[in-house]
């Protein structure tokens, strides 16, 4: 029996977008002559997701990420293709599917604006038909994980963006969803808040086998949460593989940070190696491992002077993704 919780086959979505020329003349002309352009947001995408998998679904702005999530949550009807989420066709069984999925849509609000988050939590407990005892335990766990205990009695309109986002995400997790769709969940959050959210999501995945479908421009979200990456650009899937394979396949560049025991007396130079930064005691280099082996570079560095510390790292995931987006 398939362990897939999401199956997508040939999914596509086109929109009719009204066009209007700039200026007053254009506005007046548009009153009787509507020009419409067809925009293909998603074109023939197919993929599957297993139970408990954590997938990063990424792409540049306008690539079709949010449109895909909206089709998988049943908000949008596709123009073509099929999808199944937990055995349901999302756009036909939206209400039934709603009991089993959670979603966070970036900065879109779901908490009641003038009420404390606690009131919305209680409302959700009723909407999702939760047992109140279980709801209380779940709520307490999420409140502790996100450290929002002292925010719960404050009207949401008085919270900062980061505080509100933590409450929003906690609200989406109250009913123990089997899949969570996270559309830019950490946008606007500080480093500490991001870490708290990532840890809570990772915990839910490990303990409850919650499947995670994440879109994010934050490489930290992707690296810390997702073992698999699917990249979409111009509405088409251009990559579908593990995060580590992504780095291995697309990245040969290395960054070396060196700390010397004695001051450097002359500039460090080696063919095929770029010096990013050189100080009195420190050196930062970047090179392509296909052009010059790592051991050669290290040997040259150690031959220059005695080293106190040497670190070899991959460049940020953003760089990899940026390279792929250019395709």
């Amino acid at each position: 029996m398939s362990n897939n919780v999401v199956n997508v086959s040939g999914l596509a979505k086109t929109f009719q977008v009204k066009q209007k020329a700039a200026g007053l003349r254009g506005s007046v002309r548009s009153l009787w002559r509507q020009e419409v352009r067809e925009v293909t947001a998603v074109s023939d995408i197919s993929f599957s997701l297993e139970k408990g998998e954590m997938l990063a679904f990424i792409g540049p702005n306008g690539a079709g990420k949010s449109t895909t999530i909206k089709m998988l949550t049943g908000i949008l009807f596709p123009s073509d293709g099929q999808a199944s989420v937990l055995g349901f066709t999302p756009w036909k069984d939206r209400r039934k599917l709603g009991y089993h999925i959670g979603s966070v849509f970036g900065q879109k609000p779901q908490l009641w604006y003038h009420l404390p988050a606690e009131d919305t939590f209680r409302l959700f407990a009723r909407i999702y038909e939760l047992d109140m005892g279980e709801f209380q335990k779940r709520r307490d766990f999420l409140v502790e994980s996100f450290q929002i205990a002292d925010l719960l009695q404050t009207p949401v309109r008085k919270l900062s963006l980061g505080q509100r986002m933590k409450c929003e995400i906690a609200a989406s997790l109250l009913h123990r969803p089997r899949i969570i769709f996270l559309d830019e969940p950490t946008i606007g959050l500080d480093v500490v808040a991001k870490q708290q959210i990532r840890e809570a999501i990772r915990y839910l995945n490990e303990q409850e086998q919650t499947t995670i479908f994440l879109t994010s421009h934050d490489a930290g979200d992707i690296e810390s949460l997702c073992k698999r990456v699917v990249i979409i650009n111009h509405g088409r899937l251009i990559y579908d593989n593990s995060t580590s394979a992504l780095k291995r396949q697309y990245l040969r560049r290395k960054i070396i940070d060196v700390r010397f025991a004695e001051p450097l007396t002359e500039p460090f130079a080696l063919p095929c190696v770029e010096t990013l930064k050189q100080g009195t005691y420190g050196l930062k280099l970047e090179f392509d491992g296909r052009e010059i082996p790592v051991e050669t570079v290290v040997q040259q560095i150690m031959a220059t002077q005695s080293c106190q510390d040497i670190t070899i790292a991959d460049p940020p995931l953003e760089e990899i993704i940026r390279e792929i987006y250019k395709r």
Partner: protein
Amino acid sequence: MGQLRLTATKYGAITVTNLQNQLAYVWEALNRAVFIVLIMFVFVQLWTAVYQSQGVTEIAGLSLSATIWYLLIAETMELGKMRHDERISEEVKDGSVAYTLTRPYNYLAYHFFNGLGETAVKMLLVFLLGMPLVVYYAGWPTIQPQHLLPVLLIAGLAVLLDFFAFSIIGLLAFVTEDTFSFRLIYQKLVFILGGLMLPLDFLPAWLQPLARVLPFNLTTYAPAKLFVAFTWAQFWQILALQAIWLTVFGLVLWRQYRWASQRLAVNGG
């Protein structure tokens, strides 16, 4: 029975939560208070002048007192209306429809129960705030106690009919985003053919039959007229018409919901 209880609790919680949310709009409530007192004062002066200038005690079978009470009930119905078409439009514009559509409830039922508490409170507020002035000028209402429940039934069905009408308008937001113009047209039809500004009985004779069969009067004129001049014949006639229009609007809504859902384009990434 268990599922029924869970469902009732669900929608009840939606009603109560929005009611709590509305308590933040104290200034709007005060505005409404000032408005109803002012408008009723203007109406009293206007119609007193009309009756005096005509030298009559009744027009189309309605006394001055009955006309004034009629206008208070009509304003109560109008000012208490759910504005959920605006809410649907805002949800589509700011993208939060992504949340309201993915929760395990009926979308339109959600909006109905969301607005229900607010509507009840608004109507009660308008009626109670306008009543002292109306009692002062027009005396106490003459409705018989045994007619109160039927009038409340008609008023309840009027709220439901209005909800259907504004839902049809609101769902257009799935396609057009902004529904202001449609709402404006509907409101003006209610003003003229719905009996908001004056009872249908005062309209020209050639217009009255048309106005009576159209749905607009069933949301405003119907409960107000029954309140001031109840007859069982008119009650059954109104009830039948409300049932017909509820069925018609209900069918339109049922078809439109699927049509609109397929065309929804949510703003933002």
